[in-house]
């Protein structure tokens, strides 16, 4: 895919990842080259152990590759120190997890504020939560929210720092069908309206239909990297 340097949100060059497992070495990624463009909604598909979560972790600076280089926003994150990586995660990336990972002792609003106070120009927390349909649930603790509501709080937390890149690991993994679809609709809308780059990791191949691009992994290699010329709206999805 041809793209100018400015348009690339994340670029992986010859990235490998090896996990030592006792006496064995597990090759999670085997020379991945990839470029994700700004404002794209990308879905990475693959069976368990294909390396999709590893790619997400490397893009988010949660892990470092065994070889190769990763660039985002013009900077090489593989060369960052621990402190710089923290700042990178704080300012450039939003994370959405399968299990929401909200802080149980903080309310919905506080969970989002916690991330907001880490950056100098956060989005307004109240309106953001209201926009995500949580205007009435601000003072509720995670244990008082449904799964869908919790995930929406997690989305708000990921967006409040206004990061260019949002990384999602099986965001509907433990949600029911309808709620899962609503979450994807929400994310897709945000991607479109706010111009964020979304990278979603899932094993659900049907989700590829809503993506601008679908990347398929197998055994740590990219086996398919396709642009979807006619992405569906999430509401139209069936699986």
């Amino acid at each position, binding site marked *: 895919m041809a793209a100018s340097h400015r348009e690339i949100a994340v670029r992986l060059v010859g990235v490998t990842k090896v996990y030592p497992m006792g006496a064995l070495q597990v090759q999670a990624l085997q020379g991945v080259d990839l470029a994700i463009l700004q404002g794209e909604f990308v879905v990475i598909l693959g069976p368990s152990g294909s390396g999709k979560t590893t790619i997400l972790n490397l893009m988010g600076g949660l*892990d470092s590759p065994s070889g190769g280089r990763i660039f985002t926003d013009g900077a090489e994150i593989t060369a960052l120190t*621990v402190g710089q990586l923290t*700042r990178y*995660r*704080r300012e450039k990336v939003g994370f959405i997890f399968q299990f929401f*990972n*909200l802080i149980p002792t*903080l309310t919905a609003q506080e969970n989002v504020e916690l*991330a907001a106070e880490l950056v100098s120009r956060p989005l307004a927390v109240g309106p953001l939560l209201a926009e995500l349909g949580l205007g009435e649930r601000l003072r509720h603790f995670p*244990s008082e929210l449904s799964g869908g509501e919790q995930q929406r709080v997690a989305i708000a937390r990921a967006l409040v720092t206004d990061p260019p890149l949002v990384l999602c690991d099986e965001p509907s993994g433990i949600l029911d069908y309808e709620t899962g679809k609503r979450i994807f609709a929400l994310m897709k809308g945000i991607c479109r309206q706010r111009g964020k780059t979304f990278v979603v990791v899932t094993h659900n191949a049907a989700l590829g239909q809503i993506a601008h691009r679908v990347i398929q992994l197998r055994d740590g290699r990219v086996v398919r990297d396709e642009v979807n010329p006619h992405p569906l709206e999430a509401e139209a999805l069936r699986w």
Partner: protein
Amino acid sequence: MGKLRLQLLRDLAVHKWQFGAATLVVALGVALFGGAYSSYQNLKASYAYSYQRLAMADYWLLVDEAPERAVSEIGALPGVAAAEGRIVREVPLHIPGSAGVLARVISVPQERPASAIDLVLVEGSFFSGPQAREVLLERKFANFQGFRPGDTIHFKKGNERIPFKVVGVVISPEYIWVTKSAAEMFPSPRAFGVVFLPQERAEAFFGSQGRYNEILVRLEPGADREVLLAQMGQVLRSYHIARLSQRDTAEVGESRRDAIRGYRVGEAVALKDQPSNKMLEMDLESFHQLSLMFPVMFLAAAAMAIYTVLSRLIQGQRPQIGLMVAMGYSRGQILGHYLGFALVVGLLGVAVGTGGGILLGIYIGDMYSGFVNIPLRDFQVRGDILAVGAGAGLGVSLLAGLVPAWAAAGLRPAVAMRPSAPALGRRPPVEALFPFLARLSYTWKIPLRNIFRNPRRSFYTAAGVAVGLALILSSASFFDAFHSAIDLEFNGIRQYDAQLSFAQLDSALVSRKVASYPGVSSSQPLLQLPYRVLSEGKSKTTLILGLPEMGSPYRLFTPEGKAIAPSPEGILLTRVLQEELGVKVGDTVSLQPVAGVVGATRMPVVGIVEQPVGGMAFLPLRSVQDLMRQPGVATGLMLELEGHEGDAGLRQRLYDLPQTAAINFMTEQRRFLDDLLALMWGFIGVMLAFGAALAAAIVFNTIMVNTTERRREIATLRTIGLSQGRIFLMATIENLLLGLAGIALGLPLGYVMAVNFMKAYQGDLMSISVVLLPRTFILAAAGILLVLLLSQIPALRLIQRLDLAAEVKDWNS
């Protein structure tokens, strides 16, 4: 090996530090109980064994004079095992370079073993004969003064110096704790010592052939004491000793120095009132308190530690438990498996604790032997006590493990294999109470909410810190209390530098003469007499001190700390005496001289005086002289000296006065007491170590459990961009807040324990008030906080090493 057992061992290996910390707390509790209670039993048994083997007297009959026949007649009374007459007198010793030592000289029969109060020879030999010009020295005195067999000591008789050869060093069951009297519990061996003389030599020396001033009586087991006392009184009456009253406080030897003599009265001092025995009883009681109070708390903390660690382990292994049930393991097998952790912790804790208890017992025994002269030791490893400690340690461990193990056994597989519900979040009540807390930054808000997230665990942590601190504080309060008492005695009450004791009642005018000596800043006479104070059926034998009305360097203070002067309008009583008699200011008490009948009167109590040691009463000097109808007399002088101790010339001049029996310098006395107290540092060192270890183990466990439980949260915080430093800070704040809560609990707990601990030292011998100096508290609290900060290091390292990518995906963490 069964697979479950293999799993148990592997889990123990994985969580070795947490189970290790729980094991340590069990071990500390078992060791403390084993060590302290064994020591208590060892000391008690040693005293009893020494008393029994060395024929300790049951009664001391103090008389002015009784002939040999009276002793024989008492010895022949049914129920009396033995009666032995002896001479007990105080004689100044001449020791070159010393400003006078008062020796309590006690005659000893030649026959060994003695039928009442036998001596244990620790060095040298016994007398070569009943008339030998030889002495045996009590061990503490001999050691302090550096006397060895073969040395010579000199008795001072008027201007004469009479030499005696030291042939041996002994321990007496009567002086396991060397006291001079109930009013002088801590005489310095520099100024006071016990010396034993052959019976006939003593009789010749004191010109008292066949006549004794003390009769030791040993009773048959089960003898009726009241009947025998009446019979002994009857025997003495036939020798013109008008009455034999029972003393409620013993002042063995004090009556020897009675200023007023010649009255044919006698007193019976029971063993329970004998000062050395009383001091030992007091000590044993405080030991008893300590050996029960703290182990109970330690074991309670151990139970909480096991409960917390095992609960967390089970929480983390829910899927595994679900799988086991699904595979067909029975509830009993699962219960047994998880109870196995508690069993291993209990067994290891008991093994280490029992070994530690034996060592601690040996250490305490050795330390005590430095304090007191234990004539015959019955120190042994007390299997029964160790077994009780082991049983308690194991029982507590199993009980603590039973609760989470039972819950694990009750888990249904489908429930167990599902992710657990999100932790319950709620606004802690303190935020409703103090709304500003809700506006705190997240660095503070998250730790604060975490504390209320698992209140039981937080309470347990704070309680662990509190018990550790309380142990340190209550042990340290012993020092504070005694240091304060010593300070009050020497910086507050006794504003003089030396007390010169007359050999016998003499003219107070000596004071004027002494005051004119160069180097003497002031000299004031003092009249000190043994008296019985009575009020509504209660009676107490004590000393009345006659002090100059104006300018007395013996200062008196009310319990509120206000200065008070002796008044001719009535008597002042120390708080100890007041409480013993149950009187208050305004009540009238009767005063009866211990010797004779002259001086009996009634007078009102006009004030209460705070004095740490000795229940005494105070009157103006003139009032006591008038009472005794002996104007112008004194029993000693209170001297203020230049440079506190005077120069060698002055000391010699004072010592050479014909009236002088001994001079007791306050600096020396204080040094002796400080040295005595310093011996206890070993004890506080042990308690410090135990307290700190307890706090460290509890805090370590809680922090590790909290961190393990919150791995995903912590990883999430790191993922969204919180720095490692800020997460460390949040963990530290949470721990410090718990530590501060523990300190807030530990202070009153420590105080209550100190009150209990010091109760043993509040009786008719002394009244040591509970004191906890702010300095001690601050140091102990700071120490505990330091321990807490060190204990969180492993948890911080765990945070540092968290695999963020793995943790944020782990639904079970």
